[in-house]
């Protein structure tokens, strides 16, 4: 841990109350550093401000993979070692389509998976702090950087919004997964 930050956590027991709290903090312009939920909540995902370009990137992967596969097929079947299969043309584009399609899909899958793994930091023993164990079960956790926000005000707001638990935690106090 390079810097031991103090985090302020507000724990809710329902999606409704979390979304309500999320809206409120957005309106009050309090910076929310992260939200942990057991399932994706689209309102939070769309308005939190984090962006993902994985779909665009995948499109480019597909584009370049298709070009690369076609080029490979052309090189091997036409330039490097053309073989005569029953007098058929070496450059048989229609029958290259199938291989190109499948290998493009294959490449997009592999590359997108690795992109996801790298960008979302998902790999075995990655070493991320788990702030609240319930966030993958039935709790909805909203997290603030305790030094960046007005901690007292946020705590009061959380209490008013019906948080079932308000915790302050140092990064070093969390369990690492």
């Amino acid at each position, binding site marked *: 841990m390079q810097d031991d930050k103090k985090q302020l956590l507000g724990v809710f027991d329902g*999606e*409704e109350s979390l979304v309500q709290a999320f809206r409120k903090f957005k309106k009050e312009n309090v910076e929310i550093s*992260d*939200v*942990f*939920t*057991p*399932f*994706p909540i689209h309102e*939070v*995902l769309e308005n*939190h401000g*984090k*962006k*993902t370009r994985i*779909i665009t990137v*995948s499109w480019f992967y*597909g584009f370049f993979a298709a070009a690369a596969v076609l080029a*490979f*097929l052309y090189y*091997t*079947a036409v330039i*490097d*070692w053309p*073989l005569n*299969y029953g007098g*058929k043309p070496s450059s*048989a584009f229609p*029958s290259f389509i*199938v*291989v190109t*399609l*499948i*290998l493009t*899909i*294959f490449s*997009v*899958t*592999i590359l*997108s*998976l690795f992109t*996801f793994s790298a*960008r*979302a*930091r*998902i*790999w*075995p*023993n*990655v*070493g*991320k702090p*788990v702030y609240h*164990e*319930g*966030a*993958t*079960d*039935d709790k909805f956790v909203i997290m603030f950087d305790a030094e960046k926000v007005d901690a007292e005000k946020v705590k009061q707001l959380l209490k008013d919004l019906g948080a079932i638990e308000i915790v302050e935690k140092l990064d070093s106090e969390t369990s690492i*997964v």
Partner: protein
Amino acid sequence: MYKTEIRGPLILGNKTLGQISEEITSPIYQRPKMWWLVGMGISSILMLLGFWGIYVTIATGIGTWGVNNTVGWGWAIINFVWWIGIGHAGTAFSIFLLILRQEWRSSINRAAEAMTVVAVGCAAIFPALHMGRVWDAFFIFPYPNTRGPLWVNYNSPLFWDFIAITAYLLISASFWFLGMVPDFATIRDTTKSKVKKAVYGFFAMGWRGSVGEWKRYEGLAFVLGGIAAVLVVSVHSIVSTDFAVSVEPGWHTTLFPPYFVVGAIFSGFAMVMTLMVIIRKIYKLHDYITDRHLDNVAKILVFVSLIMGTAYLTEIFIAWYSANEYEMFTFFRNRITGEYTVQFWIMFICNALIPQLMWFKKIRHNIKMVFIISLLINLGMWFERFNIVITSLAKDYLPSAWADYSPTFVEVAVFLGTLGIFSFGVLLFFKYIPMIAIHEVKMVNKLKTDKKK
């Protein structure tokens, strides 16, 4: 937007989120039950038998099989196509129903995907063995080599097949695994056992459910879903071209790609039905896999069965309409009335006629009937492949080249072995992996509770 009010809740029993995690993960914490151990035992015996068959095939050669010059494709190819067909259900379930926004799929897709991965693995055994010298299987990769350099023939459907199945196995496995990552995290965070925490924590790969993770997860699921939908359709189309580009009577038809794809989805959904009825009964998951879920699968089966019937009739009609004597012979003399009449009628009755019973609500809601029908469909689909592979090959153009085919014990052993591998894999899945996608069910459960407020 959601029609849950009209059609009733997707998840019964007014569950809290904690309850959902607990109930779905409970089999992981229970000691293995007697039926599970017995099942594993039987599967292991079948697997051993299968490994013996594989050993004999590799050590002695394809001569231990019943195939001959005329009928070059025997049980191996029948079983290959059958397993690949069953392996289409998972992706069809996840992807098509995702695209169609069918929320009810979320209770079933995990099991369907697990089944897919195991079934495709079973399928891949057969073409590998059928190559004869399986230790030279790497010849099929296009790589610079010292034999020429001789690249592979890209015009050959057999090469397409190899690529398609490899890609399909990999993509369905990664799609399946991706969906499990948040659920593994749930187990990691709720379990009290240190070993489980370490093992599931390893596979959860640091998942915490943060905004960045969910957002990218959804993006990736969208991408993989979109391209896998293309793959579902293309894989079995490619398998069908193995047959359709040849000039055998009964194979050389343009009907084959859609006919095979529909057949694959048909047998896959039937296998899903079989499995769901079992899971539901054994693990008492009636609240998650409700009668409505099974009813929906049954409705799909009825519809797909109609398409199958249409495909059979189209084949027969075109055989007559083309006035090609060899096609006429294959369909009317060989299949409908001749030597293979039993197999043909088992296929036709099990696939096209019996599932029509499920038009009746009474039968759709009778789980025993539905279960039996789903088994019969799988039987019928096996005979469909038998019909396609054997009847066309055994009697084609020259009567002097006609030959009979019957499988040897080695071939049967390999098939039983794959059945063993399948049930072994599925039983492991029952025990060690959440059978229902926990986070997806939580999301669907929410839809209902929100409506009430």
